[in-house]
């Protein structure tokens, strides 16, 4: 059933939350670290591994320093939101569930042209890939739809179905907005109506300047190396703690992998990474992601019987 048109950015988010909650997903909160995409949330990366069933949905603030445009570009931001759904095993009606979510935010499939166009997904930094589509609504990409085949170098058994909605772009389309900064964040009828620009224009400027011109690259590089070393140290630690309990620290290690990945993105935005070095850095982050995945699959959440 197609709903009435939403009136604000947050209403779209709320409707997605309530729709996916209604489909039985655990509605999680954003991960409290800087990530480039919702996929980095351990609720996706790690939980796609192993045999345990899983169903989660959440908003994830995402940062892509190179995409900063000082708040001037109508479509590009260095900080934006993704909506992420991960269900394992992927249910046979996942496409229908997805189309239901579009209806929930006011996209009527009988008025629009909704298409599944081939787009295979690959994350070189996570050692992950899957097959699926980008979903088009009237020629605009509104979501990524992926059946994960491999994560962290491990084959996915069972396969997870992943949905990623670029919230700003989707909301701008639904709300008929041309410039992201003009988008109503809360209800325009509220006593204090706030636009996306009221909330984010200044931060986009500040971060764009820092990302491009100011971030201390020596420090970032050192942090990168620290995160890499800490990740490896955590994973190299004996699996038993001092009381003899078996506690593999997959998540703390993975936090360091996330940190390294974001630091790499910042270094990239500062333009200090050459084309050749780029591949090497991506390879280093991927090596960490693989080790974290290796560790996770030896844990209970990773499918090992307690």
């Amino acid at each position, binding site marked *: 059933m197609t709903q009435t048109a939403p009136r604000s950015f947050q209403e779209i988010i709320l409707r997605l939350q309530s729709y996916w909650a209604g489909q039985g997903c655990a509605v999680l909160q954003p991960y409290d670290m800087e990530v480039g995409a919702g996929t980095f949330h351990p609720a996706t990366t790690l939980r796609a591994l192993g045999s345990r069933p899983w169903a989660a949905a959440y908003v994830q603030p995402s940062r892509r320093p190179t995409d900063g445009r000082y708040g001037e570009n*109508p*479509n590009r931001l260095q900080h934006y939101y993704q909506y992420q759904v991960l269900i394992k*095993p*992927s*249910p*046979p009606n996942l*496409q229908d569930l997805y189309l239901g979510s579009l209806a929930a935010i006011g996209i009527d*499939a*009988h*008025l*629009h*042209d*909704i*298409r*599944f*166009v*081939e787009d*295979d997904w690959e994350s070189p930094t996570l050692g992950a890939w*899957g*097959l*699926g*589509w980008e979903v088009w*609504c*009237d*020629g*605009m990409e509104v979501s990524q739809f992926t*059946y994960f*085949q491999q994560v962290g170098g491990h084959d*996915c*058994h*069972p*396969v997870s*179905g992943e949905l990623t909605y670029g919230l700003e772009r989707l909301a701008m*389309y639904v709300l008929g907005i041309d410039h992201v900064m003009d988008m109503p964040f809360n209800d325009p009828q509220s006593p204090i109506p706030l636009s996306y620009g009221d909330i984010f224009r200044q931060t986009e400027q500040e971060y764009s300047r820092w990302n491009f011109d100011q971030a201390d690259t020596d420090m970032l590089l050192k942090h990168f190396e620290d995160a890499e070393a800490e990740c490896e140290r955590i994973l190299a630690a004996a699996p038993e703690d001092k009381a003899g309990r078996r506690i593999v620290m997959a998540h703390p290690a993975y936090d360091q992998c996330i940190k390294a990945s974001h630091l790499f993105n910042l270094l990239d935005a500062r333009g200090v990474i*050459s*084309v*050749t070095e780029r591949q090497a850095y991506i390879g280093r982050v991927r090596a960490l992601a693989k080790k974290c995945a290796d560790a996770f699959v030896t844990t209970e959440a990773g499918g090992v019987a307690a």
Partner: protein
Amino acid sequence: MPDLLIELFSEEIPARMQAKAREDLKKLVTDGLVEAGLTYRAAQAFSTPRRLTLAIEALTAESRPVREERKGPATTAPEAAVQGFLRATGLRLDQLEVRDAGKGQAYFAVVEKPGRKAAAIVAEALETTIRTFPWPKSMRWGAGTLRWVRPLHSILCILTDDHGAEVVPLDIDGIVSGNTTRGHRFLAPAAFAVTGFDDYAARLKRAHVILSPDDRADHIWHDATTMAFAAGLEVVEDKGLLAEVAGLVEWPVVLMGRIGEDFLGLPPEVLQTSMREHQKFFSCRNPKTGRIEGFVTVANTETADHGATILKGNQKVLSARLSDAKFFWENDLRTVKAVGMEGMAAGLAHVTFHNKLGSQADRIARIEALAREIAPLVGAKPDLAAEAARVAKADLQSAMVGEFPELQGTMGVYYARAAGLPEAVATACKAHYQPLGPSDDVPTDPVSVAVALADKIDTLTGFWAIDEKPTGSKDPFALRRAALGVIRLVLGNGVRWPMTRQLRLRVISHMGQIVGRDGSAIARQLRDRLADMGYDDLGQEAYERMRKDALISDDPRRQEVVLSEMDRKSSDLLAFFHDRLKVHLRDEGIRHDVIDASLAMPGNDDLTLLVRRAEALAAFLKTDDGENLLQGFKRANNILTQAEAKDGVEYSFGADPKFAEAEAERTLFAALDTAEAAIAPAMKAEDFAAAMSAMAALRAPIDAFFEAVQVNTDNAVVRRNRLNLLSRIRQICLSVADLTRLEG
């Protein structure tokens, strides 16, 4: 005889994979059926984004029973042999037949295999097909292990005859076959049953699915051209896009829109590329202005507002895309006007071309040096060729090419003009990539030819220097295409260019860049050695490079290695050119042995000369004189070769006419003198046709000679003289082409 209908219904199949999937489905299933003993009249495969369908007409209802007879041992054979036969056939002794086998009685095993029902065979063939389907990429889904291009939802498989339709029972990992399918995802999602192919296609159409991709393409093209015509525009033909779009929709609905006024000033290639790559739109041209002014998009659904919402959405996305393109275009124009093409190219110093071959800027510097050297050979001004080489790849740094890599070269032409560069330089920005394939045009403007040759030679010598040659089907750097490009550039423009010297120079210069940067030392010695080898003008550039690079170390043995590597690599590259040339000339109808006969001659690194010789020889061999002369030559050569082998000497002393006994012998002497006198200057003038016609004049005297004279006579002096005479025939003929390599 029943008809078979199969439909594999799945989530959206990538458009680019559908054509091959149709063929694979047809081949795998029909092969399976035929192998199991069924026959059929016709088979046809179809696809939509959500289904692969195969319709087979008039399949035999069951396979024929097969009677197999196997002869065993004689009845008198030892017990062990009989037991062995029983084990091999799985029969008991009393089941064997005993018959006369010509040489007494023998055992025979007769196995009757009854015919099998078509349904059982179809089920087997289809299951095997599904489990082994050659998708370019396939996936698992849910908790299962079955692989398909995207999740497979249902299998329709029915055999239909006069009595009605029967489902072929099949269960593949829980997907149970049936007689139902579904229509359009949004317009007719309910399942329905079908009784046969005609019923299936008709019901699908009512359910808003056009089954045949060709029908969908026709429909799209028809509506698009009609709509464009009504708007005073014409659709720019694009067969690849049409096939792709037909694979993206089950129910095509064509919508047309106009491009906003703001964007009409963009180059047409930019509009077309942006619309095709990002939006899968067709471009519509105004025949009066030649500009791209409209677009056609194909929706997959009908709506109550006749597509108004869909068109508005598409228009909005297009505007956002074109705003980006316009931003790139204006930005790039500002850049070239402010800092010129060379300023735009500055960033290429930081772009790696290949980690062993340096940056794009390094590469451009090499191409510039080479273009300068090649320029005089092709009638271009060296300075102009050098300038073109410097800027030809500048657009790789433009924002537009960053967004649309396929516009490389095309944008360069626009930007070079905007920067006020000479037209020949602008043209080279695009033309230096050409020819891009066997059917692409070969540039003819001298500046473009010089840069195009330099670009390709640099690439080829570079990858040869680092031993990254194409192998089998692997040619990631498109080196075969580059070599064919060089061949077509040289031949198409009649360029006279012995390549060996440049190939060696470029290979060694690349090796210099590769070896490293920590060496020092005796470059001068190596330069002298190269001078001794005839490379005295090797060039300051290579010399300097070798001096500062590790190529030249203090170890003299290293020099030997470097020189022999240079020789090996450059000869190998020349052989690669020859291989590509053979393929090219074979396509032009010149026999491989004719090419071999020409290749064996000196100067084979000058491709134009080589081909002229091959063409003249091919034409010569088509004449009677040519064919007969060849026979005469072969006869002379055979006798001579045998005699030389037998006597252990080479008969190459001048034959003396005073020992001639027969008239035919004297005539041949005279004819050889005449021919020699004509051939030598003709060869010097590279007039192969004249040389060969002089050679043709030898035919009659040679024939007459063999008719009248026996070479191997008892008189040793006369024999030796005649063999020396044959040697002259061989020498003269071989000075034109290596006729020993010709067949027949």
